[in-house]
């Protein structure tokens, strides 16, 4: 059996986050394999750690495990997690079918940063949009705000940094772009990402039995509804 991690490696990947959480980090850069590993390991933690933890979720490249130090001494929890890690072989990447198609209106008042992004990348808006929709994107994580969906990854020729200035009151359904990823807001937020378009898609309904429509691991295809 080939092991994913050597024991000395495991320790360096298990990081305390405050005094009520541990972070298990699978890499410092975001790629699909790292992201899959985080999703798979979060499932294992939820199944195996049970009552010893207060909650667990996958992030882009890591898993957060919340614990109550009064119930579970951190040394015990670390040992349990290291044991799980030593038996974790990583997840085989299985390409899921496209489950979600989302229509996007690119640019204009609802995508005010599109021109700036195109200028940074040195491409025409039409080329950018074609690149943006050329492949389905993987749902990488939920976070930042309820239902906020991180999608990726874009190729190297589609990468821009976050903005220096935060934009306030970016509406729900906005398509955000930065750091090789696209995100969709489901609530009005403030953000340092570039706002490049708008959709009718809302990934969060607290009254629904399943509050979230798109979960990590699923595939999303964008469709442009306007021509530029």
């Amino acid at each position, binding site marked *: 059996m080939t092991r994913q991690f050597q024991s000395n490696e495991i320790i360096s990947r298990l990081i305390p986050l405050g005094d009520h959480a541990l972070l298990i980090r699978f890499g410092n850069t975001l790629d699909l394999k790292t992201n899959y590993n985080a999703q798979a390991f979060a499932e294992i933690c939820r199944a195996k750690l049970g009552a010893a933890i207060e*909650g667990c979720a996958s992030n*882009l490249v890591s898993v*957060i495990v919340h614990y109550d130090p009064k119930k579970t001494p951190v040394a015990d929890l670390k040992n349990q997690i290291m044991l799980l890690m030593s038996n974790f072989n990583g997840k085989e990447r299985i390409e899921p079918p496209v489950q979600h198609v989302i229509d996007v209106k690119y640019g204009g008042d609802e995508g005010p940063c599109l021109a700036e992004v195109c200028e940074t990348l040195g491409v025409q808006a039409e080329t950018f949009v074609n690149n943006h929709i050329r492949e389905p994107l993987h749902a990488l994580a939920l976070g*930042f705000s*309820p239902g906020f969906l991180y999608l990726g990854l874009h190729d190297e020729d589609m990468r821009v940094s976050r903005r220096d200035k935060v934009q306030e009151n970016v509406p729900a359904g906005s398509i955000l772009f930065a750091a090789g990823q696209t995100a969709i807001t489901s609530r009005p937020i403030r953000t340092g990402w570039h706002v490049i378009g708008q959709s009718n898609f809302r990934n969060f309904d607290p009254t629904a039995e399943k509050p979230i429509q798109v979960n990590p691991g699923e595939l999303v295809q964008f469709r442009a509804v306007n021509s530029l």
Partner: protein
Amino acid sequence: MISSIKIERISPNSTIQDAGRPEGLLFGLSASGPMDRRAFLNTANALDGQGSQSVIEFTMLGVEFTYSGPPMECAVDGGEFQITQNGEVKNWPSLLLLTGGDRVSITTGRAGNYGYIRFAESLDIPLVMGSKSTNLAAGVGGLDGRALAKGDEITFGEGVVLRENAGFAKPSNGRTGNVVRVLAGLHADLLGPQMWAALFEAPFKISNSIDRMGFRLNDDRRRFDISAHKNIVSDAVVPGDIQILGDGTPVILMRDHQPIGGYPRIATIIDADLDYVSQLRPNTEISFVSTTLEKAHKAMMGA
């Protein structure tokens, strides 16, 4: 007879809170819950653990309400507010016996940002994902996900026994003055020893921008520069994280923090000191001192 209260006046961004919504993490929703858990718990203890699980969390300007129904107890605590019942001055904190027609007025006092009212009977508020806590940024929980407003009426359901919850902090120990203990944050190594040392070299001031999501700090020295770290991978956030924004502003992330963030976190305030921080008013000085995980856990257990 259904008993109820009517809000006659209330400070902005006051909300319904209970112990929180840990399940929300799976949906990109932070746990919420009271900003000052110690005061929240004190109101439960004042009612011998027989009161409502959910409370009114009011902000700095307080709240005024009228009560109708048969006699019922309520406990108030948090910060140092002033309180009257039918015009008569009461102590703070207090256990009050309300009778129909009573009018309770709470106004700002010497200290504190957040106060709590816990009634003996449960607030008739729908559970959303297992909790009544309001997350204003998300628009979830409480009264339609919004802040409480003048004219709101809240009725009471049956009294409930509080669920056993061992998660509450005792009074913090070992903290002196406005010195708050921190652990190294997720990106402390990335930001490097100079910025880590700068965190401790002089106090910050609490800015005017404070809410349940975060407390921004004023830093006259402008000691943080994260221009080299704009493309770090977004990662998990916990309450108490000290995040540095693109312009160098430090922000202490609070109960309604975003679950994942892309700005670097230099340090995390220990659990035992976070309630205290939540009550620091704008323009108050705050300093940090480094501690260890072991000491943080001891402080939390009240050792």
